[in-house]
Structures are given as structure tokens and as C-alpha cells.
């Protein structure tokens, strides 16, 4: 009783957060376990049997293994754009922090502009078409890089400041080229922020719905978020399949969450203290 009185806020918080935040996820899992008839009731109830495997097989086979194609596409998209983002943004962040020049002001301005300005959709499609990149996966990869650069440059720039400048000078005096200095000395030292950028951007790009919707339409190159959207109408009555699909695409973020929670929180709160 004493324990209850002392910790009532905590207990209340646990109760409320469980209802508000865990019930929706429990609903996803429960519905994914049900068969078609039971899931159509939209109830929060225990399934009358274990149907997850059947649902999984059916979801995967739908429309010629579309989900598998989508997972491959999303994996390529995420890995490729995050790799480019890390390298290109680190290069900019490095030079931007180290060498004040006529460009510095302009670059800083463009970085902020990239954070604030909403991308102009149709003109971008027009440009992509002109370059032959519209409806291609590599086109979308470049788009994700362009839109993610600002955030990453800011993170890298802040972190480069903590690496002593003497290190660069010593390396250059030893006769290394700037490229070697960057890839063999600086980039390895940026490891913590590289991990942060990889995590934050991977989650963002994997979950991205708007950009594939605009720049990668059509069923051939579908990404995982779009399968969900496409199946929404197709599975109008088969909630079990729809929620199995939701469960499937929640697994990658869940893995990131379980193993890298600390790093990703650090990345997303960077700059909060300084303002």
C-alpha cells in the first residue's frame, strides 16, 4: 500500500501509456494473427487460432510476390541513398567547418533553405523526366540524397569541430592527399555521427511514402510503403492480410529500435540543447 502511494504517478503513467501506445500495436499483431472472417469484425480480441503463417504466405504471394520485390527495392533505396548521404554530407561538413571562404555563407544559407523549403513536386518530376531519371530507382536515390543533405551536413559540421585541426596538418605534412586525409583519418573519427546519420536517415528513407509516391509510380518499382497503400484498397475486406503487411514493414524499424535506441535518440535530439 505504501509502495502504491509513493509511486502512484509512475503506476498511472504505465497504465495510461500502455493503453494509449501499446494497444494500437497489440491491435496490429492480433489482427495479423486472425483469419479473414474474424479480422473483418475489427475487434480487439484474441484470435481464434494461429493464422499468421497462412496470412504471411498469402501476403507474400499477392500480385506476383510484390512484397518481396518491394523489400528488395526499399533495401537498395535505403542502403544506396544513406551511403551517398554519409560520404557527400561528411565531405561538405568537413570543408565547411575547416575552411572559411567566400562559399561558406552561401553554403550555410542553402543548408538552412534545404531544411525549410518544401520540395516543388511537379518541377522536380519535370527535371527527372528531362534527365531520364523519372520512375527509376536510382532517380529516387538521388532525390532522397538531395532532400536529406541539409540535416546530415549540419550534424557532420558540428561534429567535425571536435576533431583537432593539428591532425589534418600533420597528415598533410606527411604527404597525404586531401582525399586520403578525409577517407582514412577524418571519416573514421566521425564514426559516432556516421552511425547516427545512418540510423536516422535509414528509418526516414525506409518509411518514406511521399517521395516514392511522386517519383516512383507504377507497380514495377514499388517500395514497401507503397505496397501498403496499394493493398489498402485490394484488402478492403481482408484486414488480416492488411495488418500482416503492416506488421512486416514494422519489423525493420523495430530492429533498429531494439538495438540502437540510444544512438537514434541522440541523433534526433542533436541541436536541441544548443537550440
Amino acid at each position, binding site marked *: 500500500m505504501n509502495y502504491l502511494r509513493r509511486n502512484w504517478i*509512475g503506476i498511472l503513467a504505465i497504465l495510461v501509456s500502455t493503453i494509449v501506445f501499446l494497444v494500437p500495436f497489440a491491435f496490429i499483431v492480433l489482427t495479423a494473427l486472425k483469419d479473414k472472417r474474424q479480422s473483418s469484425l475489427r475487434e480487439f480480441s484474441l484470435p481464434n487460432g494461429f493464422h499468421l503463417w497462412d496470412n504471411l504466405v498469402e501476403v507474400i504471394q499477392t500480385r506476383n510476390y510484390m512484397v518481396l520485390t518491394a523489400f528488395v527495392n526499399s533495401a537498395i533505396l535505403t542502403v544506396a541513398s544513406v551511403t551517398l548521404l554519409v560520404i557527400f554530407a561528411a565531405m561538405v561538413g568537413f570543408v565547411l567547418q575547416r575552411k572559411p571562404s567566400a562559399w561558406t555563407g552561401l553554403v550555410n544559407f542553402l543548408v538552412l533553405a534545404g531544411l525549410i523549403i518544401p*520540395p516543388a513536386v*511537379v518541377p522536380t518530376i519535370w527535371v527527372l523526366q528531362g534527365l531520364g531519371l523519372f520512375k527509376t530507382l536510382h532517380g529516387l536515390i538521388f532525390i532522397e540524397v538531395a532532400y536529406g543533405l541539409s540535416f546530415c551536413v549540419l550534424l557532420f559540421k558540428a561534429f567535425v569541430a571536435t576533431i583537432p585541426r593539428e591532425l589534418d596538418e600533420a597528415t598533410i605534412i606527411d604527404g597525404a592527399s*586531401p582525399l586520403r586525409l578525409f577517407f582514412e583519418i577524418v571519416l573514421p573519427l566521425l564514426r559516432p555521427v556516421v552511425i547516427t546519420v545512418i540510423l536516422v536517415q535509414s528509418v526516414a528513407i525506409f518509411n518514406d511514402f511521399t517521395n516514392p509516391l*511522386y517519383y516512383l509510380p507504377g507497380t514495377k518499382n514499388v517500395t514497401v510503403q507503397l505496397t501498403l497503400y496499394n493493398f489498402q484498397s485490394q484488402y478492403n475486406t481482408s484486414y488480416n492480410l492488411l495488418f500482416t503487411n503492416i506488421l512486416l514493414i514494422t519489423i525493420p524499424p523495430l530492429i533498429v529500435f531494439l538495438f540502437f535506441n540510444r544512438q537514434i535518440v541522440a541523433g534526433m535530439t542533436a541541436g536541441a540543447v544548443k537550440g
Partner: protein
Amino acid sequence: MSDATHAAPRPKRRTTSAYPSWFYLPAAIIYAVLFLFPTVASLFFSLTRWTLFDATFIGFDNFVQFFREPFLVKGLVNTLIYAVLTSGLKVVLGFLLGVLLTSRIIARGYLRSVLFFPVLVSTVGVGITFTVMMHPTTGVINETLGLFGIKGPGWLTDPNLALFSVALVDVWKGVGLATVIYIAGIVSIPQEYYEASLIDGASAWDNFWNITLPLAKPATVTVIILSLIGGLRSFDLIWAMTKGGPGFTSDVIASVIYKQYQAGFYGLSTAGNVVLFVMVAIIIIPLSGFLNRQGDGQ
């Protein structure tokens, strides 16, 4: 360390070449071609009737239409309501939760995790889940309310409510981020302030108002700016839940842009983009200037 060397006169020309300007190049090309150029081009194309192949200059007709057609004006107003509501709620809830989760309560780790996980989950997945749970008659939410004898509203079917329901789901998904930002801000407040106020005999309430709230201001600024930018641009959640409906009562600018694009009105769609851009700029730039300047004064 680096500051000291920075102040020292630069030794030789050769040292500066450690930082070649062409390092900007790969990023600059992608950014310029796929972001900057389309943004500048949008200013022109918003003044045209456009088929992607040829553009006829029609002056400000698209913008006139934007401020005259009721369903487009509705989109503008909804965007503002949505952005202000979601960011306001995220600030208030995020701050309270941040204070709660930095205090000495049980199961802190569990609470932080539970709160933060939705941030990482697919927006479309969340949208679909809540759409099913918010079904007016057989949805989980209204059935639960029914157990207590409350007749739940048509969350997404009532034209007056749809936008607010989506905004609530947005807050559900995003409050975890606001909370961890506040936690980072509150943790960085030096403990000495609290020790001093303890000696002065201040209550917990005094601490909350006079120490935590003012000194967590950088976090507040970050949360406001981030969630306003996000809220003004918001598209995927609204599209996954209501597609702007019923009718066009929950349309926002971003969904109008998509609808006009689908309908083939590329000029009008681009004008929508420019309107959104201007709206974000006239809200965010003065606001962040104001908030940051205030911070310096203290």
C-alpha cells in the same frame, strides 16, 4: 583546442589545400539539380498553364484561384489549423512528459521506449491502423467508449472532426520525439539551480515554473520549429487516413498539391507548392528569429 589553432595565423598555403573546395561538388550537383533548380523553376511554372511539355503564361490566375475556390481556401486554413494544433500539443505534452520522465518515477526506461517507438514506425501503417480503430460503429475506440455508455463520434466521417482526429494521431506518433528533445534539454540544466532553490525553500511548483520551463527554452524552440515545419508540410498521414475527406474538409495544401497533380493541373499544383513555400517561410523565418533573439537576451 581547435579554437586556439583557429586563432593562430595560418602557417602556409599548402595547409589550406587540405580542404579542397571541390569536396562541395558531389553534394552541390545533386542539391542544385534536384532541389534548388526545381524550386526556382516552380516560381515560373506556377504562373503558367502547364502540361509538362509546354507552358502557357497566364499570370497570377493560379494564385487567384487558390484564394478564391472554396476547397482550395479550405486547404490553406486547414494547413494552419493542423500545424498550430499539432505543434502546440507536442510542445505542451512533450514538456510535461519530459519533466515526468526526468523525475524519479518507476519504469522510466519503459515509458521512454514506449513513447518513442511510434516515431520510428511507418506513417502509413499508423494511419491505416488508426483508420480501422476509428471506424464509427465497429471501431475499437468507439466500441470501448460504448462500454462506458458513451456514444463515440464519427472520428473520420464527421466533416467537423476529421481534421482534428488526424491531428491527434499525428501527435500520438510525434510526441515521443518532442519528449526526447525535452529530456535532452532538461537534463542539461545545471543541478546547481535546483540545489540553490532547495536552500531558498522553493516548492516543486516554483522549480517547474522558474527553473525548468525557462531553461528548457532551447528545447522548446526546437520542438516548435520542427513540428511547425512538419505540420505545415504534412501529407502522408492525412492521405493514408482521409485522403482529404469527407468531401474536402480535411484537405491541406500538401494533399491539394497531390490531387491537382493527379488531375493533370500541373500549373495549379505548382502554385500550391509556391503557396506552401511562402507560408512556411513567412511563419518559420520570423518565428525562429524571434525565438532565438529572445534567448540571447537572457
